[in-house]
């Protein structure tokens, strides 16, 4: 990524890229420090996901039969992981918008630091944060009957895919957080966008039960392809996979989504950030 840091004056003796990296790590440190100091944030993020697990595994789950005798909870958990990661954009947007409205961004922008560092640090720390939340969720998943049936390498591939996707979603969050007029709007905007994305998908129900015009959307939905990738990689049941391209090549389509999202939203976010001085 190129950034304003390329204009960094030589007198500090630090090159543009190196300065972006070291400043970015300081911002990452700073973002991570706040997690244990506002534990409510992480606790609610985990609780929200656990609530979905309980709701669907134990309340609606009985009404959703899986052909071939698959375990619904085992089917559900990868979807919950994917949904949690999609919601990563919310964390990012809210954090970003708070920094803007509390004047911290202004302070950072008045320092001789790499301008890209704020964005890099935000994306990085949110990946770490979401990684932590995933660990908690996976442990809870094990308790309700989810398991990985394949092996360590495919398990790690799945985790890597989740974190890559979290990184992509962070850029949507960065752009949103910089674009909205207040923190409250950031919260609402994010949920208005994200709830449909996670519900019109294969996370909770077989996509075949959706109205026919929604089915292709659900099939191409990145939440669906991410979920299908995880089910495939981990050997969790996925009895509703169709013969469509996204269902046949979920990992490839998910990676494409990551590329597209970053390619669109990273420049948008950076432009937003730059244009704050106009």
């Amino acid at each position: 990524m190129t950034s304003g840091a390329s204009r960094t004056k030589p007198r500090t003796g630090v090159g543009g890229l190196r300065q972006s990296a070291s400043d970015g790590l300081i911002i990452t440190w700073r973002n991570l420090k706040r997690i244990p100091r506002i534990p409510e944030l992480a606790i609610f993020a985990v609780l929200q996901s656990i609530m979905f697990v309980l709701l669907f595994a134990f309340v609606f789950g009985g009404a959703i039969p899986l052909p071939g005798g698959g375990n619904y909870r085992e089917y559900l958990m990868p979807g919950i992981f994917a949904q949690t990661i999609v919601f990563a954009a919310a964390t990012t947007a809210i954090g970003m918008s708070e920094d803007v409205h509390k004047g911290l961004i202004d302070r950072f922008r008045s320092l001789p630091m790499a301008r890209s560092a704020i964005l890099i640090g935000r994306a990085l720390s949110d990946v770490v944060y979401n990684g932590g939340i995933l660990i908690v969720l996976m442990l809870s998943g094990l308790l309700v009957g989810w398991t990985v049936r394949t092996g360590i390498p495919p398990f790690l591939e799945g985790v890597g895919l989740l974190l890559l996707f979290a990184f992509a979603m962070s850029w949507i969050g960065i752009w949103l957080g910089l674009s909205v007029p207040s923190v409250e709007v950031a919260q609402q905007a994010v949920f208005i966008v994200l709830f449909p994305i996670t519900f019109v998908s294969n996370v909770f129900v077989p996509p075949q039960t959706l109205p026919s015009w929604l089915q292709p959307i659900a099939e191409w939905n990145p939440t669906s392809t991410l979920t299908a990738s995880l089910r495939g990689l981990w050997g969790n049941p996925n009895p509703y996979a169709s013969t469509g391209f996204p269902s046949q090549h979920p990992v490839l389509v998910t990676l494409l989504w990551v590329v597209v999202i970053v390619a669109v939203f990273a420049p948008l976010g950076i432009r937003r950030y730059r244009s704050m001085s106009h």
Partner: protein
Amino acid sequence: MSVAQPLVDPSVAPACPEEIVIATAIAAHGLVKVYRSRKSEVRALDGIDLEVEAGTVLGLLGPNGAGKTTTVRILATLLRPDAGTATVAGFDVVHQPQEVRSIIGLSGQYAAVDENLTGRENLWMFGRLYQMSSSAARQRAVELLDQFGLVEAADRVVKTYSGGMRRRLDLAGSLISHPLLLFLDEPTTGLDPQGRLGMWEVIRGLVREGATLLLTTQYLEEADELADTIAVVDHGKIIARGTADELKSQVGGERIEVIVHDQVDLGRARQLLAPTGIGDPHVDEHTRRISIATDRGAQGLVQVVRDLDEASIRINDIGLRRPTLDDVFLSLTGHESESGE
């Protein structure tokens, strides 16, 4: 990493500002800024000219919405002007922003410190982002915490700080790299009287050490207290500049001030006062106060008391007042200094 030094003409772009004695710390000419949105256009700055000599304090004085923050943000490279130019220590704020950033300190209108970090962590982070080494940043944090009376609170999260402590920490953050030049945007707004006095003390300390300072304020008293020269800004324009004394003399000498008991008497009292003073009396209906400039001193006051008494107008208060900067503002703009709200 070695960087080839380009041959520069030092009179155009000093390569290392610290080694050059700069007489003019800030020079701004014709700054214009228009905020555009779909619905409206706000001409926040309408041609601001400023000059600040090194080692002096300029007070930018104006009501809410006058354009103070916008001016500071442009000079601190956070905002691009739509027209005009500005240099800080010889560096152009638009074309050499990174150079400007490395020699200024900015303390914004709202304390911009991370609430979830401790005071010490905040200062360390800012030091690192000024490209100091970790240990140098730690060392500097210790010095500043001491200087600003934050040693005891150093390891508490900022969330638990009072407003005054936050502002002091914010100011400390802007001093990390020993800036040549400091911008303070309304440093005491929102502080209680005790916090304000504490902040004044800190700022006076900086001035004694020879800091060059641009300070904005809505409080005339504050500009009088801290600034060498004052520029009065209103609706994006500088409408007056000079020392506090020069500005005071612009309004004329003393004023007679009367507060009448009954609102209905305001009109009559105004007529009675007019011949004793100079110019038009100023009437504030709300507080039932009339004031007028006079060159007749105590003699004039006695005359007014007599006239009011003869006309049997009841008064609550009367007095002869030395002009304050409030009067300056009133006579320059025709409205009270804090009416911008």
